[in-house]
């Protein structure tokens, strides 16, 4: 292990092929092709250098952060390589900012049907490595349902393609599923092929308030049973109470809005036009400094009770009714204790919690490993073994994901 490696040294050894710079004492390499990524990783592996893979850095703390000698920055792996709009597929460089990709796809009225956080900056690779998702997963599923192929580079420089460019394909293992949510610990994603969806037309967004959570529960249930086309059903909990964001496809010539109004009235809910986007609501959780932020997953019917519990314990939260809840708790010791209790309750109901953002005090509190659920199911050793087969020297993102 060679301490800090000099940018100049790497540049020379790579034959000047890869842009390498030094920034505040960190050595940062910006390969612009898959081959350059492979050359860099081969070299780092040979020299025993630890590599951190970085997109825009919007979710750098998620997964616990990594120790590194070299930062592999993906920003030069940028651009929509191919948009086969008639096939509803597109291949994109992993360093492409999410919104930039969506702008290109929108030229043909299409999109990748996922609304991650901070889409102006967050990169395609980063969104997938962290398995981020938003309100649209209600209708379209998560990244694992939208990625149909990938090019990845393993720590030893092996370049592998997985999946393909067709939506229906059962040849070989779905390695791209393994890469989604792996926090870059198994390989570097350099290119991704997505299945696309048409941009929704006639989309209306509303915010719904009810005197108590019972009304919201009734409304969510009746919307689910109806044939309304919902793009998102997002619950928001603040110290002022719970509210529901709903995105509805409602062409003017059809009866959806009337039907929805009737359902809302029956559940004694007041409907207003949405004040902000569903995504903005999630992003606002991360604005305040020194907050502890958790991602909890749970069964759909537990979402309202847990949103209420988070609020009772002094937190704010935004939850998707499919069972994904982001909660932000104040950073003081008492709040951390309450957050730990919340976490325990979620686990006891068959859910899981991972820590997205620590606070100054949380490093003192005993927060167990990232993959707590995995430990319990005894699958963690298998995950470790997969890591060992992919990256035996633990070159990539060492320390991330509970030190898998």
């Amino acid at each position, binding site marked *: 292990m060679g301490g800090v490696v000099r940018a100049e040294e790497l540049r020379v050894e790579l034959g000047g092929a890869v842009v390498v710079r030094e920034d505040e004492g960190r050595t940062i390499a910006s390969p612009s092709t898959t081959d350059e990524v492979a050359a860099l990783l081969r070299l780092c592996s040979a020299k025993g250098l630890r590599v951190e893979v970085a997109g825009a850095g919007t979710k750098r703390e998620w997964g616990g952060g990594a120790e590194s000698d070299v930062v592999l920055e993906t920003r030069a792996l940028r651009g929509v390589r191919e948009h086969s709009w008639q096939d509803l597929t597109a291949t994109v460089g992993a360093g492409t900012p999410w919104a930039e990709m969506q702008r290109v796809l929108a030229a043909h009225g299409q999109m990748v049907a996922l609304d991650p956080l901070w889409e102006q900056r967050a990169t395609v690779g980063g969104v997938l490595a962290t398995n981020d998702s938003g309100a649209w997963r209600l209708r379209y599923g998560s990244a694992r349902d939208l990625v149909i192929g990938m090019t990845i580079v393993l720590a030893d420089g092996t370049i592998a393609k997985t999946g393909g460019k067709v939506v229906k394909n059962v040849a070989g293992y779905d390695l791209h599923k393994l890469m989604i949510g792996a926090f870059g610990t198994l390989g570097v994603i350099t290119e991704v092929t997505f299945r696309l969806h048409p941009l929704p037309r006639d989309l209306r967004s509303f915010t719904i308030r009810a005197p108590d959570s019972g009304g919201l529960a009734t409304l969510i249930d009746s919307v689910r*049973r109806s044939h309304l086309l919902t793009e998102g059903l997002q619950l928001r909990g603040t110290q002022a109470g719970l509210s529901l964001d709903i995105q509805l496809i409602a062409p003017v010539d059809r009866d959806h809005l009337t039907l929805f109004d009737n359902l809302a009235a029956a559940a004694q809910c007041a409907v207003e036009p949405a004040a902000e986007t569903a995504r903005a609501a999630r992003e606002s959780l991360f604005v305040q400094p020194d907050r502890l932020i958790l991602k909890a997953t749970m*069964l759909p019917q537990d979402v309202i009770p847990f949103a209420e519990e988070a609020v009772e314990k002094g937190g704010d939260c935004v939850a998707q009714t499919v069972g994904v809840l982001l909660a932000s708790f104040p950073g003081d010791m008492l709040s951390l204790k309450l957050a730990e209790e919340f976490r325990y309750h979620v686990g006891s109901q068959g859910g899981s919690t991972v820590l997205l953002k620590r606070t100054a005090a949380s490093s003192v509190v005993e927060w167990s490993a990232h993959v707590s659920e995995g430990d319990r199911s005894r699958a963690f050793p298998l995950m470790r073994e997969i890591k060992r087969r992919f990256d035996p020297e633990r070159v990539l993102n060492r320390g991330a994901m509970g030190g898998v």
Partner: protein
Amino acid sequence: MLPAKMIAALQAAVDGSGVQVNRQSGVITAASQMQTYECDGLTNFRAMPGAVVLPRSAEQVQAVVRICSEYGVPFVARGSGTGLSGGALPAEGGVLIGFSRMNRILEIDIANQRVVVEPGVINSHVTDAVAQHGYFYAPDPSSQTVCTIGGNVAENAGGAHCLKYGFTTTHVLGMDVVLPSGELVTFGSKAVDAPGYDLTGVFVGSEGTLGVATRIVLGIVKRPETVEVLLAAFDSVAQAAQSVSDVIAAGMLPAALEMMDRLSAKASEAAVHPNYPVCEALLLIELDGGSSEVEAEAREAAAICERNGAWEIRRAKTAEERGLIWKGRKAAFAAMGRISPNYIVQDGVIPRTALPKVLEAMQRMSDEVGLRVANVFHAGDGNLHPMVLYDREIAGQEDLAMDLSYRILHLCVDHGGSITGEHGVGKEKQEAMGYMFSEPDLDTMKRVRAAFDPRGLANPDKLFPRPRMCGEKSGPYVPHPLETAGVAEFF
């Protein structure tokens, strides 16, 4: 022959202290009884296992796999044996684990839209169990009335409706798996996004090479309010293909989009008389959802077909009318027997837009060899089922037909597609894997295999390419016994 000590251990594992009165042993070793298990739906590959074991619980599966691990004997899991690529073909002399006794639905959770099952549960029984609540289990392979969820998980089964609803992998949230070491682990959970690597995602479609699932958590889907089927007749496949692209480009996502060419429509007509118009290409569009959406989309789809030259469009709104249209489509494979003594079915995928080019090339190849190729497609997702027709009695024709069928798969790969959309690689398409994937791609997959199964005991010698033995050949379509018995249809 398996060692007697091992057989005794297997018996102790699944029969307990002894076989009770009126209860058959869960270990079969008589050759006559094991014949049932010597092949799956790909009937020209056969192998005799050393024993067939029928466990009743996850613990028994675990015990069986532990014994296999201890003796270093390979094992293969089998559901109903309807697979079409030889995935459930036994390892010669190894242990075959049959799941017919693990067929219980363990939990129905309507509030959370989940059903938890044992792997031997029949696919359509899941829908039967939740239909009264207005839900269904979406993946619908044509064998759905006989095939098992465990087999569906192994093959990542699709079906005609996966264009809209996705594949098995879309609907599996978690599972308990006995690893080849005999360890029982849980992947995923009833909740989405379980932390850690997506082991569920990589296990689904791994064709039995990573372990044996013993408990599976499924998601169920709300049944649509209305279903309508459109049938359109065209003078050319190109016109029908353009209509498919236009329907998709218009932002519609039909539940199914199927195409048949003249030859396959003719065969279906001869077999089940669905009263199809005589034409070069038939397009079948199924739309589902809220009544007002379906009505609007049906009008739009019909207009698109007309614009592209459809000269007859039928709209089927009742279950009977829909049933008649589907009947011909579902009979397409079996009907080939009416127009050709033998045939090989393939399962290639191409990007939708490559369809005209690929069909043209296929026609050219077919003319060169002098063999007819009939085509049935899941056109919406570019999944082709070309059927190479031939006569085994004519010397050399079978080899020509097999060569042509593999060259068609290569053609699909050359156009950016895949060698299999839903039948799996199994034993049948091992070599074609080497055409589709490079050595480093395959090597990376093998790293996963090695992490799960370092000794290669789970379903060995499948999925990955291997050097072909001298004189060895892949084969023509032979009807599955279930098909001959009229229990299942090939789709």
